[in-house]
């Protein structure tokens, strides 16, 4: 570490204003303050300060996704290895085959599964990180900003929402679209009104539907078709999921095909609980999403339908299929794009919960309701806050009028 510090210190004079590489200050600063606490001081009130800072907030969110990254590797490998065993394929195709098979393709071996899955998750994440990071540094350099840790969060969340077989050029285009159109054009961190990771994913979803939806993309074996639990439910309800051989506990624990990070509801709920305990994720939003989803799905259960099997899907299945849990814990709770008043947060959550079930049940075209529901609620978040604030103001005016 000492050697690294010395290298950074020797670079320091060159990137300060007037130095020969001053254009690279943003990059230098990101590396330097990411690894060490900075010596620069500020002289403004207040002198005493709380212990938490933005870097730490973003760091916590990033750490909370670690179990999901692990599961992304394991489950992608597990699904692929199982499919290969089923189809009698000996080794993975394409360039990945050169590495992925070092430890065999045994779907009962954890290590073999993780290693195989790593060759799907890691390229996706690295592409996201390099392309998105390049854009981030580019904008920071041109604007004279510092690179913000928010990008670490955006990049990992974006990677975890993609199917394992997504072609890497599409990953690059998706994250570029998400960061530029979803965030930078509005002025960067804190100024965007849509979640950049979801903007990127939505772009890919509509631009390359063949690579983002359907039955062929979820298991990383060529020629294998396997629907996600949610996709199956669209056609035949719970019975169709059972036909695929998935029980509720499979879906809850995460042994089902799906996007990289969304499959294990259990791990997502645990990570989300940790985020809520540290106060970073708003429990009001999460509670609102749950309440909205439970109420709406129960309502559809009551109404019932002969032609649409999704009407009969109970709330505990909605919870474990598709991106619901992941979106609820990691996407809906993004403070920048959510409502920021306390009662507004509940309303915002409920709106997401209602919309996700609406999209899943009554819209036959898109099985992925969570992404669209959150983007929809992002747009309404400022309006919700506006209503909450106006109501508060009115109530207070009435109260002061009463006491005066």
């Amino acid at each position, binding site marked *: 570490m000492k050697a690294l510090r010395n290298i950074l210190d020797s670079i320091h004079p060159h990137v300060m204003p007037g130095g020969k590489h001053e254009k690279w200050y943003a990059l230098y600063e990101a590396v330097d303050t990411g690894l060490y606490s900075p010596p620069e001081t*500020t*002289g*403004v009130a*207040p002198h005493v*300060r709380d212990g938490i800072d933005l870097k730490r*907030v973003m760091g916590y969110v990033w750490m909370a996704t670690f179990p999901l990254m692990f599961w992304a590797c394991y489950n992608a490998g597990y699904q692929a290895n199982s499919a290969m065993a089923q189809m009698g394929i000996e080794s993975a195709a394409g360039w990945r085959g050169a590495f992925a098979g070092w430890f065999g393709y045994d779907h009962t071996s954890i290590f073999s599964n993780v290693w195989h899955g790593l060759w799907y998750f890691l390229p996706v994440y690295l592409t996201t990180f390099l392309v998105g990071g390049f854009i981030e540094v580019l904008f920071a350099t041109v604007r004279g900003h*510092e690179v913000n840790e928010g990008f670490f969060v955006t990049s990992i969340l974006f990677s975890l929402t993609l199917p394992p077989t997504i072609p890497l050029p599409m990953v690059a285009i998706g994250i570029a679209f998400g960061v530029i159109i979803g965030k930078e054009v509005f002025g960067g961190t804190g100024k965007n009104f849509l979640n950049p990771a979801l903007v990127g994913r939505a772009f890919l979803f509509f631009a390359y539907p063949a690579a983002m939806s359907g039955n062929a993309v979820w298991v990383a074996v060529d020629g294998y078709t396997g629907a996600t639990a949610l996709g199956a439910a669209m056609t035949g309800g719970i019975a169709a999921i059972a036909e695929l051989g998935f029980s509720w506990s499979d879906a809850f624990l995460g042994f089902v095909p799906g996007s990289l990070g969304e499959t294990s509801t259990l791990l997502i709920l645990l990570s989300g609980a940790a985020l809520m305990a540290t106060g970073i994720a708003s429990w009001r939003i999460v509670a609102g999403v749950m309440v909205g989803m439970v109420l709406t799905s129960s309502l559809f259960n009551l109404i019932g339908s002969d032609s649409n099997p999704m009407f009969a899907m109970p709330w505990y299945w909605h919870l474990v299929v598709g991106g619901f849990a992941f979106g609820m814990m990691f996407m809906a709770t993004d403070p920048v794009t959510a409502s*920021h*008043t306390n009662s507004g947060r509940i309303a915002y959550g409920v709106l997401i919960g209602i919309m996700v079930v609406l999209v899943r049940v009554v819209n036959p075209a898109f099985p992925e309701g969570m992404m669209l529901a959150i983007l929809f609620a992002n747009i309404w978040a400022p309006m919700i*806050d506006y209503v909450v604030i106006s109501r508060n103001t009115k109530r207070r005016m009435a109260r002061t009028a009463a006491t005066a």
Partner: protein
Amino acid sequence: MAVLKTLDHSLNGGLWLDGHKAISLIQGIQNWPTPSQVMLPLLDKNGARRALVSVGERVKAGQCVAICDGIAGSALHAPYAGTVRQITTLPNAQMVIDMHLSPSSEPCTLLEASTLLQRIDAAGIVGMGGAGFATARKLGQPVETLIINAAECEPYITCDEALLREYAAEVVEGAKLAQTAVGAKRLIIGIENNKTEAIEALKQHDGFELIAVPPKYPSGGERQLIELLLGVRLSPGQRPVEQGLAVINVHTAYAINNANDGRPLTQRVVTITGSAVATPANYWLPIGLPVKVVLNTLGIAANARVRLGGAMMGRPTDPNLAVIGKTSNCLLIETPVDSTPVSPCIRCGVCEPVCPEGLLPAQMHFATQPFARDMLERYHLSACIECACCDHVCPSAIPLAMQFGLAKQQLNTLKQAERSAQRAGERHSAREARLERLAAEKKARMEAKKAALKKRTAK
């Protein structure tokens, strides 16, 4: 014996902060050695003063050296005998009377005024908790209830607590005088419940209600204390007098007692504390004492960072220019430390529940950058008391209170400009109307004359 009533409920919002108060209360209030020079500030936020002395003039201790013509300002007195060396403007735009002090055996000049209010006015007493508004003007409006604010809630500051421990009798006497002056039926002393020694000292006296509030910052804010003690919430911009209330600070009450004995306000208790101070304590400092003299006398390192005021609302100050004023309650002197660099706001909203005024600091922050007047007014910027609770919890380390303070100034400047433009407009249309009227009158007179002439010639 006053009976202590302890409140269970604390204020909405605010923070439970570590007080750092015990360190400066180990010793009693210390005297300060007579300095060789004072710089008496002519400018404060409640109005500019006019010097009554000229360069080279010999000034007696306690002599009035400057008065303020404005309504909210106060007179200024020399703390010691000496000679006026120059009347000058410092680089921070502060105008001062620079006095060289020379020892003199002459006694302090006493005030000459008949009524108590006149004596308070002549003594130059202002709200010493921070507002600096002329106390005589505040007490000139009759109210039902007078509150003495002894809830010194800001971390590090202990001057009021130290004063109460040693001079409770004088403070109570001053409070009663103020009560008489303002004609209040009720006199309440509101104090934080962790100031046990000060509460014991106050209990020895009588004739007021003693109410202890929880030590949550900012319980000692004027509006917050009123709500805690009486359950009355002032609407934004409403002054306490509109609800039949007046609030004065402990040190102000003490100064009123002094003024009643004819002594002007020339010194105050100042807490000198912080990590760069070897023995933090409270000191009697003369008004006009340069801060750099304080640093030199206490042998404090030159690179120390000085804040005038406490840890929350105090402002970083250049020690070479600052002087002790009537509202300077604390010098917080710290060795430089690393602090968090400022990051962008991510609207995490942690600033909202801590705002004691129930404002939305994050939204106001976006409205200040860039300055958006309609948005700031919609979010009631003017109701911000700049307590800096939002700063304290902000994970992005944004200096919110400072931004709001600047925006408030900007907003006031704009409003003032508008008011004067409106007045000018009114004057202009009044002049137009007057000229028109005069012209019409002249025309009418001419017509009348012409008609009379015609009549005469027709005859």
